[in-house]
């Protein structure tokens, strides 16, 4: 039985005169995959930063596992953040650290494990993600796909309950994109995390989704399937569907 792990209640967020999120409500269930899609500049990344507590809402509540993070102090927020793993669009690896040091970082900073134990865990996850032999390389020496895999390894090190993927396949060729999706499915099966994917890779990304949220002009529209999106009567969503999915779209299994 899944529970509501993230909830937005009447959230408003504006930057200057521009309202990005306008009284939005949202529920994300544990163990499920939620895809957040929509045209650029409509608030997808802001939504992600609000979930992570990197931005605070102007009004409304953001509940993570029942706790309101919108007015939470940094120390308590850090405890909540320990539940999250994030794969950033550009991987966000620390470019002055090697692959090994990047992946070991959360363990070194957040746990009391000894160096030998850390080494074993890091090498094990690097092996799982096909990165054996690349430990001593620096992010600048890796391809885009490999950087994403290192970012995923780092995000998974502390076995997060919730994984956020920000545009996980942007900048990757189709082969590498497929590789990332496979890794996503494998790691989700293994770790059982709730996943939130912000993506432009439409319609392919919908095949992974249990729930789709379209962000448009500061409002959220939630759909249970790609077919529901196509049947939407909201004009902006119809336009978005025609641009991204074509007039007819049939969902199919990816695996």
């Amino acid at each position, binding site marked *: 039985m899944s529970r509501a792990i993230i909830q937005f209640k009447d959230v408003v967020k504006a930057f200057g005169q521009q309202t990005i999120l306008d009284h939005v409500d949202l529920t994300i269930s544990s163990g499920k995959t939620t895809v957040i899609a929509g045209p650029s500049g409509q608030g997808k990344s802001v939504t992600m930063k609000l979930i*992570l507590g*990197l931005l605070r809402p102007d009004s409304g509540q953001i509940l993570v596992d029942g706790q309101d993070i919108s007015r939470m102090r940094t120390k308590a927020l*850090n*405890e909540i*953040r320990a539940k999250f793993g994030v794969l950033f669009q550009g991987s*966000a690896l*620390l*470019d002055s650290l090697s692959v090994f040091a990047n992946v070991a970082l*959360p363990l070194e*900073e957040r746990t009391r494990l000894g160096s030998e134990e850390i080494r074993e865990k890091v090498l094990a996850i690097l092996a799982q993600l096909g990165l054996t032999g690349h430990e001593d390389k620096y992010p600048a020496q890796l391809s885009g796909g490999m950087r994403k895999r290192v970012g995923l390894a780092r995000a998974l090190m502390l076995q997060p309950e919730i994984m956020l993927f920000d545009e996980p396949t942007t900048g990757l060729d189709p082969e590498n994109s497929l590789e990332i999706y496979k890794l996503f499915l494998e790691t989700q099966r293994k770790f059982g995390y709730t996943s939130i994917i912000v993506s432009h890779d439409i319609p392919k990304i919908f095949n992974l989704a249990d729930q789709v949220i379209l962000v448009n002009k500061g409002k959220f529209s939630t759909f249970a399937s790609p077919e529901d999106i196509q049947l939407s009567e909201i004009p902006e969503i119809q336009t978005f569907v025609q641009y991204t999915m074509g007039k007819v779209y049939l969902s199919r299994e990816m695996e």
Partner: protein
Amino acid sequence: MIRYLEKIGSNTIMILEDMGRMGAFLALGLGGIFKRPFRFSAMIRQVRLIGADSFWVIFFVAGFTGMVLGLQGYYTLRKFGSEGALGSAVSLSLLRELGPVLTALMVTGRAGSAMCAEIGIMRNSEQLDALECMAIDPFRYLITPKFLATLISVPILTIFFNVVGIFGGYLAGCGLLGVNPGAYWTGMEQSVVNQDINMGIIKSFVFALLIVWICTGRGYFVHVIRGAGFGAEGVSKVTTQAVVLSSVAILVWDYLLTAILL
């Protein structure tokens, strides 16, 4: 008219916001000193980058500054027949003013710009966000080691600058122009008091704080500084801004500290 007032109001809000942000940044940067675990090895690495790697720059700048002071001082003092006061003139100029100020300006150009660009690039490439998402405090992890390293390095470099500068003055005055070496050292010994040395050291600490605060702060807030732009251009603009602001702040505070401490 209303548009003018709106612009003044919006600029005032922007300046106040910026001051608030930078004030909070300073408090968090210094507050990181008391957070555990303390990153000693990162601090030592920064001392090497900011301090040890500036050795030759400081050596040459100090040496030639001392030599110029020796030359200028000699020809000025000769008019009054008091070449023997050269040691006193060179050492007081260096200890009170030129040592701390020139060292701070050199460190701003060499290490301050590098710190600003490094943090700015980390901000733009979401590396700072990544640290926060991993519940790693970016101040304790990244900023505080730079604060401490600068506060350690700049006073040491200032002392080094003073020593090399005094020898530079000796080389020009006694080695090239024939001033009596005994008169040079005795003049210095008789005129320099503890207060002169303390003034230089206090200034160097204040300048160090200004450099690291402004340079890391501008980089940290590259994404919210209005008019900075985005990406590489944003980083380049805030780096230039950080160096200019630090240099101006050093000279303004030099005046204020001199007025207070004299």
